[in-house]
């Protein structure tokens, strides 16, 4: 077994926890002195940095929420001025306002370090060529995976998203061994290979993949692995944390969460810590972030954490596949979508009533989203040209806000069911079995 950072990765659990406590204390002092936002939150909760004496004392610290990111747009959470930052990423937020995340040089290094350890843990190294079909740009997936690939000495092929024919041509012509992308996109590549008569086992050198950014299942992984001969490793992260952060090792038994970078609590419905291996809400504290702090952040994902030593020899806790959300966030084609964003756009359109319904399907694991909205009585017309104008106006505004295309269905006034609850706005028919 090869390690990227053997000393840290195999450090006994009790020592790791000591290290976590030391890092946590430092980070809380740092945040208390540099983040006006979090200092106020601690003062309001009557907690001082010196109150953190044990890892359990973490629970004295107040939470951070998604709404805090929105309320502090664009950069009020930053702990350092722009001259100390080397990069900024922007991702979409809950109600129109995006989240802006800043990085110092050290932040970028720690991010790449995290993924470099993960890549090494399933056997990637300098002999590999990584075809990275994550989007490059404001989205963290492309550049994040790219930097880590280079860090471990692999050869990175920055194909970015789209143009599947080109992606396959490069898989055939170059010694690509590893793919990175969303699980549905890798599935799509496999479909197109079948159509073209390309046998991935016979015609390419691709044997490994990194897949993340959207929900999928163990059975979908098995199908895809059996079909292509590619070992596919789960990836987890979020732009608030830096980007994609954690990967599964060759054992494929959960994602190694590097305890010296990130402390994940799993809480039950009463906010009490779950036992090791029990499912609950994830709360994330980043231990070394310099520009954009994340302390007890309610990231909204549900999973479980297991501190048993992995068969690969790594001692850091392992995070299970995500099993749900605490909020109404939907992940569609790897993009976070909140029904509230859609509701806001519908509210802008004078020809629509306030009612809507979202239906999600995934034929061949490719997500599609249908949005039904009601015309109001006043704008109901039998003129198809006007109707198609309405539809394209809504569709292009949604594309602007959500960054994905939705099928729009205009329905008659009074047709959609009038619901009380929020979650009833969505029918999710997707299955990853």
């Amino acid at each position: 077994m090869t390690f990227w950072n053997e000393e840290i990765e195999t450090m006994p659990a009790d020592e790791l926890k000591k290290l976590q406590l030391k890092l946590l204390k430092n980070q809380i002092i740092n945040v208390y002195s540099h983040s006006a936002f979090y200092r106020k939150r601690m003062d309001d909760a009557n907690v001082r940095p010196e109150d953190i004496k044990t890892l359990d004392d973490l629970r004295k610290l107040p939470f951070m929420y998604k709404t805090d990111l929105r309320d502090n747009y664009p950069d009020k959470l930053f702990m350092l001025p722009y001259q100390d930052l080397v990069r900024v990423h922007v991702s979409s937020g809950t109600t129109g306002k995006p989240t802006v995340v800043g990085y110092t040089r050290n932040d970028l290094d720690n991010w790449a370090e995290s993924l470099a350890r993960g890549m090494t843990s399933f056997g990637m190294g300098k002999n590999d060529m990584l075809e990275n079909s994550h989007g490059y740009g404001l989205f963290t997936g492309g550049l994040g995976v790219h930097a880590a690939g280079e860090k471990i000495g692999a050869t990175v092929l920055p194909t970015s998203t789209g143009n599947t024919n080109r992606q396959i041509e490069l898989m055939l012509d170059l010694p690509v061994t590893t793919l990175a992308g969303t699980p549905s996109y890798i599935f799509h590549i496999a479909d197109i290979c079948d159509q073209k008569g390309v046998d991935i086992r016979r015609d390419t050198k691709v044997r490994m993949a990194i897949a993340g950014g959207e929900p999928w299942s163990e059975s979908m992984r098995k199908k895809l692995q059996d079909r292509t001969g590619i070992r596919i490793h789960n990836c987890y992260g979020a732009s608030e944390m830096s980007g994609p952060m954690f990967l599964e090792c060759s054992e494929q038994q959960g994602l190694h969460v590097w305890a010296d970078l990130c402390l994940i609590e799993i809480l039950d419905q009463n906010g009490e810590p779950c036992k090791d291996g029990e499912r609950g809400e994830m709360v994330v504290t980043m231990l070394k972030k310099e520009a954009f702090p994340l302390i007890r952040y309610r990231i909204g994902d549900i999973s479980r954490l297991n501190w048993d030593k992995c068969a690969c020899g790594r001692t850091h806790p392992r995070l299970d596949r995500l099993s749900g959300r605490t909020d109404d966030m939907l992940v569609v084609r790897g993009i976070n979508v909140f029904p509230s964003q859609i509701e806001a756009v519908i509210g802008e359109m004078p020809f629509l009533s306030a009612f809507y319904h979202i239906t999600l399907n995934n034929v061949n694991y490719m997500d599609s989203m249908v949005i039904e909205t009601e015309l109001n009585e006043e704008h109901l017309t039998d003129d198809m040209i006007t109707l198609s104008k309405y539809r394209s106006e809504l569709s292009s505004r949604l594309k602007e806000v959500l960054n994905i295309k939705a099928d729009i269905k205009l329905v008659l006034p009074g047709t959609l069911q009038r619901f009380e609850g929020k979650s009833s706005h969505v029918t999710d028919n997707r299955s990853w079995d």
Partner: protein
Amino acid sequence: MLKKNIIKQLSIFVNNEPGSLASIALVLKECGINLKAFNIAESSGFGVLRAIADDPEGACRVLRERNIVVKQTDVIAVSVEDQPGGLFRIANIMGDAKINIEYAYAYTGRNGPSIFLRVDDPEAAAAAVKRAGMVCLSQKDI
């Protein structure tokens, strides 16, 4: 003065679900509403049955009582000769008068064939038809 050339068309709206047209047709039958002419158009979420009835006011009232979404739309009916080129002639008249045709459909009644037109300015369209020496039908002619 050209008001008599405006014909009230029923625009009956139905969501795109299997059997919804049949259910509308049943209501029309039960209410004794006789359609002289109709056409069907579809958008992505619903369809429209555009229909000419004897008594549009009454038909509207009855359909609304049955919770059917219906609107009245102004159209004109132009009498045409029973030979090739009828539609072409009308389209030319509208084009010259800079009037947009949203949709059109044909019908043959006791006064011979005619074409129903939905245009952006029905009054101007009727005037243009008359200037060109053609005849617009009134509601009672149908």
